[in-house]
């Protein structure tokens, strides 16, 4: 499907990315790059369902589950992340199915869906805080340092290894994105996002299609959380879970552009660089200022650049966007009771 030129561009870009840490070794910049890659993967995971009008604010919950399950299994049971990560992913996937099934089966869309998922991420945060005897609560949690095999414990000290792992995971995300982009599911989901009833009438199993993409998205987000945990070796409920993280995902994906594979990555680059610049600019003395400016910029962005930076640049995507948003509004109106 991909043109030869585009394939070559991807190959060259990828080769450059792989070669980068061997040429340029500044640890701080590598650290930022690793963070960008991990978060890009998380944002890409979100946009897998976000691009089909399934706006979830519950992904902070999935990410938190991935991170905490992996860390808890390692600390309390001594299970390697190689076992813990899949278990964390399955747990997040199960939660996605439990919440997703009634939502999709009973046509909970638009504002309703957003609020339900928003509550989901809030509840996950509450649970992590409530089980403070095991998870450390709001104070955060650190996986125990491993004594033996680094590969078994998935704990590496050098940034280059982590850079390559993050690159691999990110690439996996992009590949899955393209796989979905070229699958039959994409057409079904696009039909659903434009008109659910019409899609159902045309023989699309609306509930099953939505559940599939939600499951995929949740699994990948949990993986992102687990990788983030293994890299940072310190997680708090606020950094991997909750409403703030969910909003951060949506914002980055919207800023970058939802409908291109590199859009969320682009969004991650912009938002993380912005946050990091603000953090350094304000220093450690002024706690909170960076977030204040970040929030103001976020609001300004949405008011004045509602189509995202990449979206505004790529003019050709405009009609597609308009159609989906107009229909989203319609779906919301249909689903509202009592009016």
């Amino acid at each position: 499907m991909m043109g030869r030129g585009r394939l070559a561009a991807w190959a060259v870009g990828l080769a450059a990315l792989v070669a980068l840490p061997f040429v340029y070794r500044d640890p701080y910049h590598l650290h930022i790059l690793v963070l960008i890659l991990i978060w890009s993967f998380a944002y890409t995971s979100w946009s897998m369902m976000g691009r089909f009008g399934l706006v979830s604010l519950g992904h902070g919950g999935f990410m938190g589950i991935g991170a905490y399950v992996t860390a808890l299994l390692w600390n309390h049971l001594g299970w390697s992340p190689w076992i813990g990560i899949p278990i964390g992913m399955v747990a997040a996937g199960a939660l996605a199915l439990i919440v997703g099934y009634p939502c999709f089966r009973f046509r909970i869309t638009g504002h309703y869906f957003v609020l339900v998922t928003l509550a989901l991420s809030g509840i996950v945060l509450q649970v992590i805080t409530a089980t403070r005897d095991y998870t450390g609560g709001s104070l955060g949690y650190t996986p125990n340092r491993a004594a033996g095999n680094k590969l078994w414990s998935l704990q590496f000290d050098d940034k280059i290894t982590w850079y390559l792992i993050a690159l691999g995971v990110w690439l996996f995300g992009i590949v899955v994105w393209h796989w979905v982009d070229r699958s039959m599911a994409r057409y079904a989901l696009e039909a659903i996002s434009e008109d659910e009833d019409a899609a159902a009438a045309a023989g699309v199993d609306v509930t099953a299609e939505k559940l599939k993409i939600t499951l995929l998205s949740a699994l990948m987000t949990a993986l992102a959380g687990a990788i983030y945990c293994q890299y940072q070796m310190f997680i708090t409920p606020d950094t991997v879970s909750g409403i703030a993280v969910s909003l951060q995902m949506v914002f980055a994906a919207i800023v970058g552009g939802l409908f291109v594979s590199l859009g969320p990555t682009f969004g991650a680059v912009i938002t993380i660089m912005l946050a990091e610049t603000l953090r350094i600019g304000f220093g450690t003395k002024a706690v909170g200022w960076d977030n204040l400016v970040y929030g103001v910029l976020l609001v300004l962005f949405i008011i004045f650049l509602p189509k995202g930076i990449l979206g505004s640049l790529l003019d050709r995507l405009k009609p597609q966007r308009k159609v989906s948003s107009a229909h989203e509004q319609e779906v919301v109106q249909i689903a509202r009771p009592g009016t």
Partner: protein
Amino acid sequence: MQAFFDIFDIYLLEAVINGILLGGVLALLALGLNLIFGVIDVTWICYAELVMIGMYAMYFLVQYYGISYFLAAPLTILLVAVLGAALHYLVIAPLLTAPPINQLLATGGVLFVLQSFATVAFGIDFRNLGIRLPVLAFGDMNFSYARLLSFLAALVGMVVVYLFMTRTFTGTAIRAISQDRQIMALMGVDTKRIYLITSAIGGGLAGLAACLLVLQYDVHPFVGLSFGPITFLICVLGGLGNFIGGFIAAFVFAEIISLGGLFSDLEWGYVLAFAFFIVMMFIRPAGLLARRR
């Protein structure tokens, strides 16, 4: 054995009544959010953060400026009402024609702004009003006077809003707009003005809730997160924009939280409420009072 049951029943009754008292404040919060959703068709994700700002306002007015509680309360309500109107004027109004997701995200940005503003301005310490209200003993049961006051004030607040909506011209216009957005503009109603008034009322309700919650809980920049999600669940369960549904749902949730808290930690009450919510979605997906389609 008989004695055990006696004690158990007393505690149960106490929890049930405490749940009803908690339900008053939750219903107030749900009413404000529902009002804004029903009229303007926007969900303020930062609603609980407005309450947080109101709680800080109460704290500073009472603690630093030594104003009495009952004088500080109207000031706080007014302040948060102005804040609500400003939020609409500055953030929502430019986005009225934007896709719903952008409106949601913009209020999400405001959530960041308010939280970090509170962190910058007030620090992350837990603060409380320092007012100790007496405990009301009724038989063997103890009720905090603060909860009783909150419940009554919340009820009064809701009755006032109800009277405003049904007895005044502006209130009637607000209800009319929530029924048909397009037509009302053609009927000569100034929608911009109505939206602004609605936002101010929504903010005022958040302010009232803040005055009541500050009696029971400590203030800190992230306090909104502890009752924001539950308010959203209440609104969805009641049916977004459905005032009566939200009212009933608030009490149902408050009972679950209160009874859950009786047997375990309060946080688990929230988890139980969420589980209940998921189950309810299977039974009544479009809200408690909605007819099934």
